[in-house]
């Protein structure tokens, strides 16, 4: 087990290193002068030269890479071109809304999706099953921003039940914080619900056909403990895997959802950076999100032997 963890950590570091190289090279692989790209369309030659000097673009690529990655490892993601503030600080200021939205979405999606999936598998072939799975195809197909605007239009504008947009820090109280997160969470969670519900259903169907489920039924285990303790626990590995893969979906969705609902999070930071061509911010946010994705999937890999003691490394 220890050997496996070490090997797995090693490959995680390797993957992050490759991500780092990609993110670093993005600016240099794109056609044209990187300094001119960063400085923008209306920059004077003076400004371009200034950008080039600030980013150290005159040094050879390997030197630039070592300097940049050394900074990243020390938590220095560079300086924003537009606001002249450290990127790490700008990201730090925006973390709370993004983490809040991600956590509420994961909790919402997992609870709803696993219930849906278990219900659909238990009632496989019935109208409930078909309706739930039809809903899941729909969840894949309707984009986050369409769901978001639909919810705003119906719930906030027409019914006036919830605030239209914005974010309230948790320091101002759980009530207002949660109130503003309800709609974004539903909009962002829909595709995630669809993904997890499908896998839960398939995985449960497989487990429900096992002999030990029949044995459990035969010895008189009630339906609920049979489904939850005997079946769901054994169906866990694929479900947890897809939750991890879905993090990528979630990250992309966060960027869009924050724009739709006007939430001042990391996603909005990167969207605003696109318009200003603030490249260090784009780089920093990509690194952060990729790191989260890789880390979550590492933890999930390591959780397998906890979920299913038969899995040994």
């Amino acid at each position: 087990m220890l050997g496996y963890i070490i090997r797995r950590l090693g490959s995680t570091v390797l993957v992050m290193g490759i991500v780092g190289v990609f993110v670093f090279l993005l600016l240099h692989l794109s056609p044209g002068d990187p300094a001119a790209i960063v400085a923008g369309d209306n920059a004077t030659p003076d400004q371009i030269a200034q950008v080039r000097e600030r980013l150290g673009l005159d040094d050879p690529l390997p030197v630039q890479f070592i300097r940049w990655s050394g900074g990243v490892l020390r938590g220095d993601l560079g300086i924003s071109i537009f606001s002249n503030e450290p990127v790490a600080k700008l990201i730090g200021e925006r973390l709370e809304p993004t983490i809040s939205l991600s956590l509420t979405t994961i909790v919402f999606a997992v609870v709803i999706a696993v219930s849906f999936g278990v219900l659909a598998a238990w009632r496989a072939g019935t109208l409930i099953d078909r309706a739930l799975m039809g809903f899941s195809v729909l969840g894949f197909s309707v984009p986050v921003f369409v769901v978001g605007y639909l919810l705003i239009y119906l719930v906030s504008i027409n019914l006036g039940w919830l605030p239209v947009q914005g974010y309230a820090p948790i320091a101002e109280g759980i009530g207002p914080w949660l109130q503003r997160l309800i709609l974004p969470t539903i909009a962002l969670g829909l595709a995630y619900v669809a993904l997890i519900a499908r896998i839960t259903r398939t995985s449960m169907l497989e487990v429900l056909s096992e002999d030990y489920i029949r044995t459990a039924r035969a010895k008189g285990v009630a339906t609920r403990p049979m489904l939850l303790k005997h079946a769901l626990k054994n169906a866990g590995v694929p479900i947890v895997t897809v939750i991890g893969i879905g993090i990528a979906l979630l990250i992309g969705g966060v960027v869009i959802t924050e724009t739709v609902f006007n939430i001042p999070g990391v996603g909005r930071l990167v969207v605003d950076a696109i318009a200003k061509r603030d490249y260090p911010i784009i780089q920093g946010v990509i690194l952060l999100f990729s790191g989260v994705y890789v880390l979550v999937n590492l933890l999930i890999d390591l959780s397998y032997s906890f979920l299913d003691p038969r899995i040994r490394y």
Partner: protein
Amino acid sequence: MSARASPPAATLAETAPPSRARPSFGRFLRRNPTMALGGLILILLLLVAVAAPYFAGDPISMTPAKRLKPPSAEFWFGTDHLGRDVFARTVFGARISLLVGLSVAIFSIVVGLAIGLLAGYFRKVDAVVMRLMDGLMAIPAILLAIALVALTKASVFIVIIAITIPEVPRVVRLVRAVVLSVREAPYVEAAVASGTRTLRIIRRHILPNTIAPLIVQSTYICASAILVEAALSFLGAGTPPDVPTWGNMIAQSRLYLSVAPWTIFCPGIALAIVVLAVNLLGDGLRDRLDPRLARRM
């Protein structure tokens, strides 16, 4: 699967004369309702997209006097804040969405197939290529595309490339998995033993095994590409704002949600219908072509 395993039972059951002579179209529809529905919607949309210039009207011209008009006989889907015809823009938007969806599916399959065959067949290439692909896959697709588009001049072609790149690793993994399972098969060993050249083995024995899963995969890539393109345009990192795409329409109309919801929901619903149709087609194809995957999903 089971039907193929027991042909005698099947022939006994069918007392009617051999029906395999010409499978009728009606029967195909009855057996594959999702695929038929998805395909039908897509064909209709393709026709609409191709014929757009002949019937849809002008998607660009502005009539400031007729701003934010609700749907009417004159403007079926109403007008937006610049007095542009939302119906014409929605129809023209289908062209970009379908173009991007199809191009990304084709490009990523071609590139991913080539890399996947190499990685799967030549073990020395494998380790390096797969680590690179792992790295590429760790970067969220939308962010990678945003970065690529932000660095270059926005154009439809750049958007297609930017969406293709994050899709490639998924194809590579799929192809590699197929190659790895096939390359140990007795018929490949026999081909190697009888001195068949490598290129011919790949073309004749390995490539055909990748086709069915790739067809299924290409529909999912197409659906995801259409969604990502719309998202990129919506975020201002996609096709130039003057091109009528669904993402651009929604982005430009979002301040008018409460007064002119049709400016957002017409392109939004169109987007959902296209993606739903592609997904239905994909699910149908998967059930037919790839029973193993069908059971897993």
